[in-house]
């Protein structure tokens, strides 16, 4: 058991981030993001990395932007309000083609649209990964940094209070490895005076010609890149019992783990229920959803909001089977989206009611 | 009051009502009380498990305790006529 320990989700993710090569982190306290920040602050100095107590989320995302231009893997994050404040920059960082990991430790699941459609101005999208529990968060954190570096794009890890605050015995990711090599496009000042000094800009990286800088061409590039991402990033999904299911239930994140468990129990008691849990929320695993729905009579969507992912499920199935919403905003009086309705018996009941 | 003129009564100009259940046992009133006539319980605790203050003779009705108490535990009264109460051996002040 040498490398196993009881780690809080936040700590496990922080360790996974550093293990993946993250060398810069910054953020502003906000429950349930705070602990991730605190763990990064404790870990990064151990690998000569930098963690900044940013004075606000606006400053945090700006610092992360700056760090990302140097080619070192950088990350930031927040919760709800804080993420909203970062939207202006997230949109532009996407257009500047910078790798950045954003930990969105959300309160409930009301921020699905913001995460998957880009809450900022403009036409950007970025990858979104939604782990269901601590071990999966460790895996997806590593993947997030890999994808960010590979595609030069922001990648969001969408967690929540459960993920941040659940302790689980896991293999502890080792932070002793080296960080990935700094890529060629990164800035370090050295091309100054060469006649072709680099520029990193959300408005494109050309040099202004006589005709004025061609923003239109740059936006076309950005659009092409997003299409390449959509085509090239493998959609991840967790599917169970869909082959012979009468009803397929779709859910994501921590809440997806509750739904999975409910389906497991319902199967045990003989109900023909299957589940599909999108792991990449963007690109959305539309094909998998379509396939899972194909043999069933109905799809039910459980999400802890007024119905957001259900749009993606409907867009994937386009009327092939009826799609019913069985979720709803949490009754939670703390605002953290942790109950009391978020539990297996309540969810099972709604699933049974939706059975065709 | 100089040590050369020992007295065994004390003038009491005011008093307080203490809502012990509201108290969170922070001790701030103890230091705030100029005549130092408030003292925390040592064993007794309220329903939330906190110790709370009790009053010895000698309150002046100065309101310091009420003003500093973060939990609004005190109501302060000023006697229309000050009372003289026996001073207990170990002294309220």
């Amino acid at each position, binding site marked *: 058991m040498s490398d196993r320990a009881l780690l809080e989700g936040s700590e496990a993710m922080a360790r996974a981030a550093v293990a993946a090569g993250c060398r810069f982190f910054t953020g502003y306290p906000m429950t349930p993001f705070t602990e991730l920040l605190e763990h990064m602050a404790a870990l990064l100095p151990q690998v000569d990395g930098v963690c900044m107590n940013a004075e606000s989320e606006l400053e945090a995302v700006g610092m992360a932007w700056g760090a990302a231009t140097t080619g070192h893997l950088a990350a930031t994050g927040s919760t709800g309000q804080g993420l909203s404040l970062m939207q202006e920059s997230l949109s532009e960082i996407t257009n500047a083609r910078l790798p950045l990991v954003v930990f969105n430790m959300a309160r409930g699941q009301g921020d699905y649209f913001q995460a998957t459609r880009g809450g900022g101005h403009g036409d950007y999208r970025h990858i979104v990964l939604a782990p269901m529990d601590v071990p999966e968060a460790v895996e997806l954190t590593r993947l997030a940094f890999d994808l960010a570096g590979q595609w030069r794009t922001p990648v969001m890890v969408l967690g929540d209070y*459960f993920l941040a605050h*659940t302790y689980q015995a896991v293999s502890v990711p080792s932070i002793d490895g080296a960080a990935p090599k700094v890529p060629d496009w990164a800035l370090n000042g050295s091309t100054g005076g060469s006649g072709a000094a680099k520029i990193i800009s959300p408005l494109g990286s050309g040099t202004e010609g006589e005709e004025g800088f061609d923003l239109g061409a740059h936006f076309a590039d950005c659009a092409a890149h997003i299409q390449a991402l959509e085509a090239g990033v493998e959609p991840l999904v967790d599917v169970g019992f869909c082959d012979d299911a009468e009803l397929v239930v779709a859910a994501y994140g921590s809440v997806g783990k509750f739904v999975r468990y409910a389906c497991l129990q319902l199967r045990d008691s003989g109900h023909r229920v299957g589940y599909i849990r999108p792991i990449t929320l963007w690109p959305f695993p539309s094909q998998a959803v379509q396939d899972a729905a194909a043999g069933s009579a109905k799809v039910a969507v459980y999400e802890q909001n007024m119905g957001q992912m259900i749009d993606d499920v409907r867009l994937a199935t386009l009327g092939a089977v009826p799609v019913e919403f069985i979720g709803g905003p949490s009754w939670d009086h703390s605002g953290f989206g942790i109950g009391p309705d978020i539990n297996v018996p309540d969810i099972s009941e709604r699933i049974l009611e939706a059975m065709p | 009051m100089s040590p050369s003129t020992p007295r065994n009564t004390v003038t009491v100009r005011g008093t307080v009502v203490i809502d012990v259940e509201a108290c969170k046992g922070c001790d701030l009133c103890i230091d705030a009380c100029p005549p130092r006539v408030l003292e925390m319980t040592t064993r007794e605790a309220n329903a939330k498990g906190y110790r709370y203050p009790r009053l010895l003779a000698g309150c002046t009705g100065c309101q310091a305790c009420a003003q500093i108490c973060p939990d609004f535990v005190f109501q302060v009264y000023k006697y229309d006529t000050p009372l003289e109460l026996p001073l207990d051996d170990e002294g309220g002040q």
Partner: protein
Amino acid sequence: MLTGVGGQGVQLAAQVIAQGATADGKEVLVFGSYGGMMRGGHTDSTVVISDRPIEAPPVLSTTWSAILMHHQFWAPLRERIRDGGLVLVNTSVFEDELDRDRYQVVEVAATDVATDLGNPLLAAMVMAGVYGRRSGLVSLDGLVEGMRRSVPPYRSQLIEANEGALAAGWELAA
């Protein structure tokens, strides 16, 4: 499951038990929630201890054992304890009714014991000690080791007192 009022040490007690079980080699999951306030609000915690990988989500519908530190927020928990479950209750504080026929109730005047030890805030540690022994899930060594891992560095001056409280609970449960 553990329930209480913020500031009573419920989260720490859950940690101590869970870290203890991890030290003892078990699979463990803990989820503690509290109402957003630093102190005085609702606080509870769920600990899952198992020999196999854990499929269950972090909030359970039923439990076979519970520690009740305070009555204020215990109502939602009432229904979740299975019949015959082990229920430890802090009688120094707990004022609500308890269906003694349904559960296997263990009464511990934890706050009183803790006060005798010099600090009423040690009550949760006393309970953890009792729980370890009565449930058979964690050893006293495991608890002490778990407590050492759980106490944050800026609270390290409390380690000794906590250890005393765990031991006192363990003794009480004899």
